[in-house]
């Protein structure tokens, strides 16, 4: 029994013991918070979840290739209280424009500063 469990305990230990649990405080590790870019696209998925709300949106690059970008925000309860967000705010196919800090390693991902809907309305206070 011990032999069977050992690898699982090791993996759990690595997960809890050595990896960052609060990525929002480590956002500067993943994202270059000094930089800011604005990207428009079409929403493919909207996850109104803890600890961070995530928006996925498809963007066509200069070569005509479609790339799915991700965008991370604060927690759902803070967005609901401060900005009036709900879980139904976006649906697949919605136009969206996001300004945020780009990922340091070049991944198609942003740490969000501002979100505009298809009509150009600012959705963050």
């Amino acid at each position: 029994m011990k032999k069977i469990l050992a690898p699982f305990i090791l993996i759990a230990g690595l997960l809890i013991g050595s990896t960052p649990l609060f990525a929002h405080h480590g956002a500067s590790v993943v994202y270059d918070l000094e930089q800011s870019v604005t990207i428009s696209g079409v929403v493919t998925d909207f996850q109104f979840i803890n600890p961070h709300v995530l928006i996925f949106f498809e963007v066509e690059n200069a070569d005509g290739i479609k790339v799915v970008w991700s965008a991370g925000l604060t927690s759902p309860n803070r967005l609901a209280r401060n900005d009036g967000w709900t879980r139904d705010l976006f649906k697949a196919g919605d136009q969206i424009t996001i300004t945020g800090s780009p990922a340091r390693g070049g991944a198609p991902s942003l740490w969000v500063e501002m979100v505009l809907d298809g009509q150009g309305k600012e959705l963050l206070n």
Partner: protein
Amino acid sequence: MRLLTIMIALFLGAGVLQAQMPNSDAHSAMTTEMMDHGADLSGVWNGRRAPEARAYGGFGFSAELPPMTEWATARFETARPTFGPNSATVADTNDPVYKCFPPGTPRIYFHPFPMEIIQLPGRVMMVFEYDHLIRQIYTDGRGHSEALSPGWMGDSIGHWEGDTLVVETTNFNDKTWIDRRGVPHSEELKVVERFQISDDGILQIDIMIEDPVAFTEPWSGQRQYGRVDWDIGEFMCMDNVSFLGFEQEILEFDE
């Protein structure tokens, strides 16, 4: 059959009535207690930060460090917090809260989520949105329990001095930090809080911190809360684990 239904209904009804009796007593006791001291702390409260505290209010009670003993200084120097002048990255921190241990008292006040105070006869409950932590502050005249193992949030006993709730909390383990920049404490920690609502409706918590092992003298800090028209929601620490995969994918991205 109808008779049986009526009998069951009467039986259940009697049960409900019986069950309501203590509640009814409890309500009148609460009313009396509230009239006695004239303060009602109940409600949902969100942290407020004075403009002058903007630079440090997220991680400490003041810009300066408290008066630490050699024992505490040695521990402080090994702390790798994610806030303050000595901050480390999340990957390198040894902050116990990043392993989802409770932040402790008074550090819980530095986590930026609201809390609800529920005032009951003989007991004041603080329900924190962060990790749904609860503090039970007994105001029924009992003393500190001798039967508790050292705890993360401590054992809180309160009493009213006029409209001020005075709470003494002891029985801590030494695994938490006082704040978010790594100031340590020992199991000798004693926290005395004074809860008071100002004329403009602000909840002020004056916090006196004593620990002869960690500090050369008692010192104090203050936190302020404003009433909000919110319900306490969820923010569970372990949800952060689910974010790791998302973050890892971005870190490991290779064009």
